[in-house]
């Protein structure tokens, strides 16, 4: 189901990949895997986080990221570099002021009067304009003709689904507040980028009822504000060891016990009653879970967006696991 190629889905034209999802579904893991997958195709990629968690640094096992694009992984030959950046609104605001208004002294004065703190933690909408504004800057940097690094793709580890529409709909957040003025103009430019074919919003989910429901709700919300939904990224999908027939037998308790005992004996394992009972019970639990997962897969298929699966890694996600997940995404054609 999840093997449409990059050409068909058109991800090649996408520069900004926004990754959201319900809390606990592995947004950061999915975003990092996607960024690695894109880099493995020879692209120069920037992976950003905006929630001050330093989740990227933890995943890549590097020191906490500063407000500076930092090389975290490099391809074997030319190209394929992955940079990471933790965007915090305070630094973004100061940079923004310096860049567009040449506010050296005033910038510091703003800080002294608590304005930076006010604008970035309290003033609604302003914070999000600053965070998405940095992404905008990274995308359009080349157009300003500087010698700065040019990215082929920017992957944004975004806030969770509950806040994503609000986060991305920056100009409507500001609409009631700033009807004119530079920050409004800035918000409008960001919005144009986010609504263009250059941007896709991907939603991570688990194969469980609530995360899938939230993914479905988020798709509706994003459509309502004219944002393009990219793909559903299914995280922590269970292993597919048993085929459908075997799973049905496992649920009804009809797996061939004698055959299993014979096979175990063949590889020198003593097939005690307890062991065989245990294996059968584990198989039953697995099959029940898989049945629920398949129900959710059907719901996801009905959402009308492509989906990609990341397997559940028994040892958890470490750096090696991340590379493995990136390979899965490449294989399925997401990058």
């Amino acid at each position, binding site marked *: 189901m999840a093997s449409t190629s990059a050409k068909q889905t058109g991800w090649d034209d996408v520069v900004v990949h926004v990754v959201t999802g319900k809390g606990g579904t592995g947004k950061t893991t999915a975003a990092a895997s996607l960024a690695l997958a894109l880099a493995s195709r020879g692209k120069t990629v920037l992976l950003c986080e905006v929630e001050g968690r330093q989740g990227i640094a933890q995943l890549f096992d590097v020191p906490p990221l500063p407000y500076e694009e930092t090389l975290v992984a490099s391809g074997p030959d030319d190209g394929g570099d992955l940079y990471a950046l933790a965007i915090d609104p305070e630094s973004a605001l100061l940079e923004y002021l310096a860049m567009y208004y040449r*506010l050296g002294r005033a910038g510091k004065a703003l800080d002294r009067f608590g304005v930076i703190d006010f604008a970035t933690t309290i003033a609604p909408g302003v914070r999000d304009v600053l965070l998405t504004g940095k992404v905008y800057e990274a995308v359009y940097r080349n157009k300003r003709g500087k010698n700065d690094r040019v990215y082929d793709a920017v992957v944004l580890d975004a806030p969770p689904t509950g806040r994503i529409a609000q986060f991305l709909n920056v100009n409507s957040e500001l609409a009631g507040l700033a009807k004119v003025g530079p920050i409004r103009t800035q918000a409008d430019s960001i919005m144009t980028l986010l609504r263009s074919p250059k941007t896709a919003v991907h939603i991570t989910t688990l194969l469980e009822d609530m995360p899938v429901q939230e993914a479905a709700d988020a798709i509706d919300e994003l459509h309502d504000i004219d944002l393009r939904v990219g793909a559903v990224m299914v995280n922590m999908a269970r292993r597919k060891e048993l085929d459908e027939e075997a799973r049905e037998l496992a649920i009804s308790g009809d797996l061939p016990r004698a055959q299993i005992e014979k096979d175990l004996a063949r590889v020198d394992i003593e097939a005690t009653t307890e062991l065989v009972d245990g294996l059968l019970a584990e198989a039953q639990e697995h099959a029940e879970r898989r049945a629920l997962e398949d129900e959710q897969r059907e719901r996801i298929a009905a959402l009308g967006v492509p989906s990609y699966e990341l397997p559940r890694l028994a040892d958890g996600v470490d750096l090696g696991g991340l590379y493995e997940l990136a390979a899965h995404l490449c294989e399925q054609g997401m990058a």
Partner: protein
Amino acid sequence: MSTRGRTTRRVGPLAGMPEASPRLDVDALLDDPETRIIVCTGSGGVGKTTTSAALALRAAERGRKVVVLTIDPARRLAQSMGIETLDNTPRPVPEVSGSGTLDAMMLDMKRTFDEVVESQASPEKAAQILANPFYQVLSSSFAGTQEYMAMEKLGQLHKDAARTDRWDLIVVDTPPSRSALDFLDAPERLSSFLDGRFIRILLAPARGPARFMTAGLSVVTNALTKVLGAQILQDMQTFVAALDTMFGGFRARAQQTFALLQQPGTAFVVVAAPEADALREAAFFVERLAGEQMPLAGLVVNRASRLLHEGLSGEQALAAAERLESTGDDSTAVTSGLLRLHADRTRIVAREHHLRQRFAAAHPHVPTAVMPALSTDVHDLDGLREVGELIAG
């Protein structure tokens, strides 16, 4: 925002052998009449809402008069409590057995904020505030409003409970923020907003003597006007001036609720999944509670994997599966599949065990309940009962 917790140092014994945590005695906690408030907290996606509902139901069926405040329940969970759509008013959950009662409600953040404004200001002033564009955005999207309003609602429920005797236990779910600490930081954030230098500057012209109108300030206002435009500043000023009379009220209420959380009748239940991130969050929260002198009841680890038999190690199972597969005999596919499943499960169980032990080594005194993963979703009251039983052990 949530970076604050990450810069704090580790708190707890600095040396210790890995050992099992003491067991969290859930029933003793629920049965104790001194327990008046249970706050379930933890990072997003760990099953806080389900845990809150299950604890509330169990307490009710053991004879307590319970109200549960959920934040954003799944439709199925709301349905499982026999209520199609929960709203800002507590409604009785039907078919609760035993002598106790259970009411359930869902936080409506904007409604709650509006009510606070209406209760604190004169009708004309309230109308003026409610219509201000700044208020409308603030009340529906200020990062932290949900946390603050959950606190506010808890304070209200507590007052109602004391006044009417309708409830003797309040179970609170906390908003699905990335960091569990956000819940505790929200009132502080609101206070610092209200006490902030910038707010005072905004208020200064309205207060007469322009003593703040220093050279520094005009640089600031000029810069702000440049960036934000003059109109937004004006709206902000109007809003802040309108809210001014209520500042004291807001701050006092936030502080009261915060103090309520420090009382011995409150019990925090930290919820986590057996994942590194969730347990790290749980550890931060446990340390923070200790720092704030807030009573911690214990840790609930949801969705734990378990082995259904012990006889075969993961390595053995994997080796056996590989040997079976190398025979090229298709009839062994089911058996090798079972062995691989078992090997996988063994690794997951070992990793989760390791993560829990790491937590226990740093926080040996935190009572812990481990709740095994269910193979089906909760969709009715029986499902919630089962969860309650499993947590209680």
